[in-house]
């Protein structure tokens, strides 16, 4: 039950006094979620949805940075391997 799933906010509106939105989880799955805790979220933003609530806005910059770092590490590993053999 604790699983949080990333999704893309596609619409923002109000319902019974609560900020709500439609979130696209990919593969044609759209679900309503409460956006009360992400007041600055806009359509197009990605968020982690947990039991019907957006917990944050995902940072694309941080995601790309992490991936770049890991890719770099990966290629470094490959470059290092032959060296080790030579030594």
């Amino acid at each position, binding site marked *: 039950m*604790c699983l949080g799933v990333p999704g893309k906010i596609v619409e923002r509106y109000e319902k019974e006094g609560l900020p709500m939105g439609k979130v696209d989880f990919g593969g044609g799955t759209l679900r309503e979620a409460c956006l*009360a*805790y992400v007041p600055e979220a806009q359509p197009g933003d990605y968020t*982690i949805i*947990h039991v019907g*609530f957006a917990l944050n806005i995902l940072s694309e910059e941080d995601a790309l940075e992490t991936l770049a770092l890991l890719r770099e590490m*990966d290629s470094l590993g490959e470059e290092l391997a032959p060296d080790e053999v030579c030594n």
Partner: protein
Amino acid sequence: MKYVTEFRDAELVGGVLEKIRQTVTRPWTMMEICGGQTHSIVRYGIDQLLPPEIELVHGPGCPVCVTPLEQIDRALAIAARPDVIFTSYGDMLRVPGSARDLFSVRASGGEVRVVYSPLDAVKIAQANPDKQVVFFAIGFETTAPANVMAVMQAKNLNLKNFSVLVSHVRVPPAMHAILGSPSNRVQGFLLAGHVNAVMGYHEYPPLLEKYQVPMAITGFEPLDLVQGIYETVRMLEAGRVEIVNAYARAVTFEGNQPAQKMINQVFMECDRAWRGIGVIPASGWCLRPEFDGFNAEKRFDVGDIVTKESPLCIAGQIMQGLKKPHDCSAFGKQCSPETPLGATMVSSEGACAAYYKYGR
């Protein structure tokens, strides 16, 4: 950027695993706090791909597993009342109480409904003014923002027929309990990323200081998990005691401020019993007195509860990293998902369920 497929890239995962192999020189035991992470680790076989020096033990971060038996029995008693519609996250239905589970209460005529979000329970209360609607508000910090909002919304809508049965727990006090135990084996932690998405990580430095264990805030995809493990191994090998944010796209130091504010408005700290583990001081959240009107424990008198736990179940020791599911003599024999003796065998975040499902 879809935030899913990118973090399941097998080649990158392989690269990080290789770095882990190159880095590790001696045995280390680390714990992933969150049961969701346990399931990812076992599902993707990460536990089997790691070098043999690294042992992962599985933490207490499974809200269904740690909800105390007494509270389950109370839920069962409330759910059986003819005036009640009892609502719960689906995971809770098969969790064994002392004598039965919510599923069997439903089979014998109780109205038990599974909801996806606590706001759905509020909607059910609006649609059924002649019934008492009770929501089983269990969970860790991740789930608290949703559960408190349901209470606030019921208050704002002036609902008189909605209440919550609260069994909320928090991660840092549980880590205190694990690390402070003389039999502790945990040398490093993978922190539960979505707990930190809500709470940030300003609560952790005192733990770091007191127990000298490194921690990495870790996400849930395979690449996140191996990255968290790699960061932790690096710190352990170098003798560094730090907290590294290996889930930066989702977690900030401060966490989600509006959510923390709302939690503080509705909940206050309290002692809480953890199933199989016992009472951990200040480890829970309960409703503030001003929300007594929404407190199911106050609304329904169910009399004395006498609990009876299976004598075979060692789930409490598993969740403290002292044992593994295989160490339980009942695993796969008397205890299976069809005939569970403990909650850990039926929860989608339970370690026993993960080992059973993925054939460990």
